[in-house]
């Protein structure tokens, strides 16, 4: 029980640091520069593109790893056939 309370205290430490979900005052008003400015241009649609690309790359990496496993099996079967 004291452990649970301790954990709850840890969580309350995080309290107050969080910006509000849709409150403009919780976000700094400084003009973004560099890649930030690029990402937030056009109503931030580029952020959505970045998110979609991350998912796409993740699926691709998984496909490549499956491919690798197939190749390993193919090689093993091929070698077994040769003997």
């Amino acid at each position, binding site marked *: 029980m004291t452990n649970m309370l301790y954990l709850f205290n840890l969580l309350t430490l995080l309290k*107050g640091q969080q910006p509000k979900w849709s409150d403009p005052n919780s976000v700094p008003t400084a003009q973004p520069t560099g890649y930030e400015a690029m990402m937030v241009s056009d109503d931030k649609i580029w*952020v959505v593109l970045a998110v979609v690309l991350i998912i796409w790359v*993740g699926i691709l990496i998984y496909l490549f790893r499956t491919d690798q496993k197939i190749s390993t099996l193919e090689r093993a079967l091929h070698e077994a056939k040769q003997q």
Partner: protein
Amino acid sequence: MCGGSDLAYNLGYGLSFSQSNMTLVVKRIKIGIAVWMTAVILAAFVLSAATKLPILEQTARNLYFHVPMWFTMMMAYFVSAYFAVQVLRTEDLVWDMKVVEATRIAMLFGVLGMLTGIVWSRFTWFLGTGKWWGSDPKQMMAAVQLLISGAYFVLRSALDNPRLRARISAVYTLFSVVSMIFLLYVLPRLTESLHPGTGGNPAFDKITDPTMRLVFYPAILGFFGIAWWLFDQRVRLARVEEDTEGFYIQ
């Protein structure tokens, strides 16, 4: 078809007519998933969404991509828990292989959910601060969950006996799936978070306008389909590996 090749065909993977019929159905389902997901991605960009909100703007559309990652992860974890129960019930090692593959899928989507969340928050709530990691309670707990899940593979690598490994890691899977519910759905709600339903933020059904649901729910289904597809490939591969085990020495 000459007799020899006919025999080879029948012995090969023992495909009877009904089984090959089944593979055809599965193939069509996969084509369906591909078309469905393409339509979802198109609709996600084309249809109107709640893009007038400050901070969020067009990134409101990330709802269709970031959130389904977590739904898919949860689904994969629940499926892995089901397989784990089957391992303990039947002691059949085929189920053990399925637990591994389902956990891999869950972790893939968990990591993708994490990365998409990091990028989303970087250019919205953490704009101008240079922060990539916001110590959001839900984000922290998701990271903890991924570590717990990663330990599953460490645990497996430490055990040599396949039957013992299957049983012990199945119990660990059940533990990690139960911990996920508390980490992601109970603890973050006790404190403030950027996520809906916490710290005075509106619950999901209040912030989402009707047209967004039209894309959001199909997106979840589509990602379930993709996850099942990736899972299915690995399971079939493992089956072939097992079937041909006698033919070669690894």
